[in-house]
């Protein structure tokens, strides 16, 4: 039984084309903004907000309509685009991409509400809407070519957002971002083309860019697969960013406008990690295991290095940027633990980092609009004039540190468990990252919020109602996902299990005892146990029904 046949039946089920709507609606919005003449900034803002809110509503509807027990791709849509090369407009969603889609749907409207541009409104809204189209496209594509196209498409809007509406050395930061990411994707394009031409997955042994067909063909030699994996891995490593490829991120984050930073941290950093999950592991199960020690090492270095460097920063935005390097390190080590706990942890880290860091950047944006600086040295004693602001900041900061009960903890914990089961020494080193997080964030907080405010900071305005409303949904999610991540895990788990089995099948040598899906260490149970121990309120704690919601078919799965 091939994976595609399972998926083909799925395609008939949905009534509403959620996925094309999610991808195409932002394109329509972009076009509309382009058509409205320049003198109507309110109109541009309105179109951008209506578009992104509609996309958010659609993504929530998708979340509701998503069948939790399924391990296959759902809501599949396929439309031939370039028939000669079997390139298709091929979309589908599974547990791995579902929450990233919802995250994209959520963070764009919030970024729009959180900040307004100072000038050239039309271009600003146009690029931000186009950026959303690209991000949605990346998370939903099941065609290698379409994926690459969308992956590249995200470059241009963010380049303009940073370069035109950013701060300080914005042109330098934007250009660096563009060239770094493009260099990564350049290698990926060659890798994709090499894969497609080698796999002969199309009709009559022709070229095909259909992800599932390529996976099913399995005719790429082991050595070639390793090289091609490397091509993908570098592109994703730049985007994630993984340790030696991260240098564009602090610059881009620091100089980007608030909305750009929010979208960059919340959504764009997830593209790379998602790429490892969707393409790295699925297409190259053998190469993933072969490269796992390298990736684990780089991820661990990223965690430790990001933490240490973040502690040294004098600029708040730069500090959070380096903390992103550290946090994404947790996602990377979780993925390359290559077991259910690690993968689930990685996805949770991605989602939670999106929410928490998004909230942090929004808060920094508010500080900037008040004080026109991100320098820690120029901020002092903000707690006195703005206690609510300080409270909200503390809350989000604690979530970022990974305080149990808040969402940041869940993902990092699961991911560390996964790594511990597979490669415990790396887990021991990586765990220190949590301590670093507490160090740099608390220290930064202490320097900016504690003490007596000087003259410049004495009249720091308190948080406005509109600002509270923007942050409220994020704070609620931080609590909800920290206390009760089960609904999320339930939907992620089937897809993750299939993926882990897929990797194990390709690597018979991999010890199955540690990593067996649904083995003695069940991620949800572990979490619950931990929460009880920490005496956190976990009222709705319910037992994970036996073997969780799904029964994974012996041979089925996302592909072979």
């Amino acid at each position, binding site marked *: 039984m091939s994976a595609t046949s399972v998926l083909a039946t799925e395609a008939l089920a949905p009534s509403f084309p959620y996925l094309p709507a999610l991808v195409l609606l932002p394109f329509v919005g972009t076009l509309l903004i382009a058509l409205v003449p320049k003198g109507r900034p309110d109109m541009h803002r309105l179109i951008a907000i209506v578009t992104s809110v509609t996309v958010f509503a659609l993504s929530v509807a998708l979340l509701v309509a998503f069948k939790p027990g399924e391990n296959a791709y759902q809501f599949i849509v396929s439309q031939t685009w370039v028939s000669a090369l079997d390139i298709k407009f091929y979309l589908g969603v599974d547990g791995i991409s579902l929450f990233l889609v919802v995250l994209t749907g959520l963070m764009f409207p919030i970024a729009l509400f959180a900040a307004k541009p100072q000038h050239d409104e039309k271009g600003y809204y146009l690029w931000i809407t186009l950026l959303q189209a690209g991000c949605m496209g990346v998370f939903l594509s099941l065609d290698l070519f379409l994926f690459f196209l969308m992956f590249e498409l995200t470059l241009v809007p963010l380049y303009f957002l940073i370069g035109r509406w*950013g701060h300080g050395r914005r042109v330098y930061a934007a250009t660096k971002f563009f060239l770094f990411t493009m260099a990564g994707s350049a290698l990926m394009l060659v890798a994709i083309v090499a894969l497609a*031409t080698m796999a002969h997955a199309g009709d009559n042994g022709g070229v095909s860019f259909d992800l599932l067909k390529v996976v099913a063909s399995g005719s790429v030699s082991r050595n070639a697969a390793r090289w091609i994996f490397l091509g993908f891995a570098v592109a994703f490593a730049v985007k994630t960013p993984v340790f030696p490829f991260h240098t564009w991120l602090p610059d881009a984050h620091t100089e980007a406008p608030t909305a750009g930073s929010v979208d960059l941290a919340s959504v764009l950093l997830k593209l790379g990690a998602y790429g490892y999950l969707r393409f790295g592991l699925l297409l190259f199960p053998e190469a993933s295991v072969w490269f796992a020690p390298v990736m684990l090492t780089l991820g661990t270095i990223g965690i430790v290095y990001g933490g240490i460097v973040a502690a040294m920063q004098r600029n708040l935005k730069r500090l959070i940027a380096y903390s992103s390097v550290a946090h994404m390190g947790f996602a990377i080590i979780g993925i390359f633990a290559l077991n259910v706990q690690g993968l689930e942890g990685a996805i949770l880290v991605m989602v939670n980092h999106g929410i928490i860091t998004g909230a942090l950047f929004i808060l920094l944006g508010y500080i900037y609009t008040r004080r026109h600086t991100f320098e820690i040295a120029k901020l002092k004693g903000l707690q006195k004039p703005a206690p609510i602001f300080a409270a909200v900041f503390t809350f989000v900061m604690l979530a970022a540190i990974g305080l149990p009960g808040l969402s940041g903890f869940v993902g990092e914990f699961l991911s560390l468990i996964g790594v511990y089961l597979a490669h415990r020494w790396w887990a021991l080193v990586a765990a220190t990252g949590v301590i670093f997080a507490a160090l740099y964030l608390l220290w930064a907080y202490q320097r900016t919020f504690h003490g007596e405010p000087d003259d410049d900071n004495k009249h720091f305005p308190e948080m406005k109602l509109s600002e509270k409303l923007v942050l409220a949904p994020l704070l609620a999610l931080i609590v909800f996902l920290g206390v009760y991540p089960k609904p999320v895990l339930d939907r992620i788990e089937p897809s993750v299990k299939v993926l882990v089995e897929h990797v194990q099948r390709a690597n018979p040598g991999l010890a199955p005892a540690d990593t067996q899906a649904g083995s003695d260490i069940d991620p949800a149970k572990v979490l619950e146990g931990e929460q009880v121990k920490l005496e956190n309120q976990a009222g709705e704690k319910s037992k994970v029904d036996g073997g969780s919601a799904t029964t994974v078919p012996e041979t089925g799965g996302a592909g072979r």
Partner: protein
Amino acid sequence: MIAATSVLAQAISTGAQPTPISAGTKVVIPSIDWVALLPLLILTVGAIVMVTLTSLMRGRFISRAYPAYTVVVALAALLASLPVWARVQGWTSFGWIDLVPKQPGASTTVGGAVAVDGFSVFVGIVICATVVVTALFLGEYLRREGLDGPEFYVLLLLSASGGLMMAMADDLIVLFLGLETLSIALYVMAAMHLRRVQSQEAGLKYFVLGAFSSAFFLYGIAMVYGATGSTNLVKISAFLSTAVLTKNGLLMLGFALLLVGFGFKIAAVPFHSWAPDVYDGSPTPATAFMSAAVKAAAFAGLVRVFMVTFGSFAEDWKPIVYTLAVLSMVGGAVLAIVQTNVKRMLAYSSISHAGFILVAVSAATERGIQAVLFYLTAYTFMVVGSFAVVSVVGRAGDDHHSLKDYRGLARSNPVLALVFTIFLLAQAGIPFTSGFFAKFYAIIAAVDAREYWLGIIAMLAAVIAAFLYLRLVIAMYMSGPEDAEEPPPVLGPVRVPFGAGLAIAICFVVTLGAGIFPSTLLDPAGKATPQLVTFTPSSSAAGSGSLSGQGP
């Protein structure tokens, strides 16, 4: 010389070649397929009629009609190509017109000297389209610069006819004729701007170096003739596939010299040194035509001679093309970085693009030819569109080409800036533009031929080149102070005349259209395979030796 005459004498006896008239021999005039030659004839006759009429009539009204006339002639040539295309493809109906093709499929005519196949028609259409788009903004340019006169248009049409001749050449001599017709007209066009010293310099430089390269090319033809006994590509191909060469030094020398000639025309490193000066100095519309049509015609010749005729010797010429490709891509991109003149930047970028097309050539497969054609078409519209913008922003005098002159263009001419940005991003290879697919197909061709490193080098060179385009984008969009709008350019907004606007719009539509619906361009490019059809005097449709039959 004696050998040559004996070959000629042989040719006379078989009647297969155009024959010199001498006493006692019966003159055999080869059958001529006038319909297939119609596009070429329309361009040539159109140019001659224009010269004649304008020398008889003078006046303001007439001078206003030059661009329109040129556009009409080029469009007529373009439309005249369509029935040939239909015939070559063997279509039974063309739109609402029912066709009964007389001889479906590719053929050859004029005694085997001219190929009538999908490839020649495709390239011919691209060149005609280049003329149309160039002529659209040429009129206003000449009026602005006070250079009004029919000469530029005549030369444009003649040059294009040379390009067509190159595209359909099935004989090295015809190829050379086409090359010279194309080039000589262009030498004059380059020097046409009377009030700019750089223009005179460009004309002279282009002429001297071009003549030099023509000499190389001619030597190459002679060597190949010496090695194979013919200048006819079909016969060369047949000879090479049947005869075993014990010593092929002469042929290899011929390859090398021909490649030098082509290398000059496509401006591949290390034969590129003329390009920046000539691009910069020439009147901008001439630069546009030069960068698009000359590349198309020269690559058409290169593909037909090397990929098709010498296809069985691919292992011998591939390393040279490989080297040229790498040098051009990397060299063009790196040298472009330090430029501050936009026309020079685009010149270096065109060198880099030539390298990218050479990547597809070095694949030496049918997919490679398809990629070459797609790239040439996409590039034509990107680059003509870019130069149309440059010609408008150059303002009166055609000398505001510094990067500084583009500062704040986003503020004063937002639409123009956005369209230029799209052209630049297309050249950088950003998705949803034709440039992306052009690069993509070139990479597919290379990777499919197992040239992975070439693919990787090509993409990394594209990243370096992207920096060059970003510099222009930065100048237009990001030169202002923080948190404020761009200051408008020092010289105020530029006025975009109607013709230039139309030309830019056409290029814009094609660039985005081919980026969103690539099949519309890719499928015809796939059908436009060059074929070597053996000429038989009675019926010219006979056995063919297309690339698929003799590929590596």
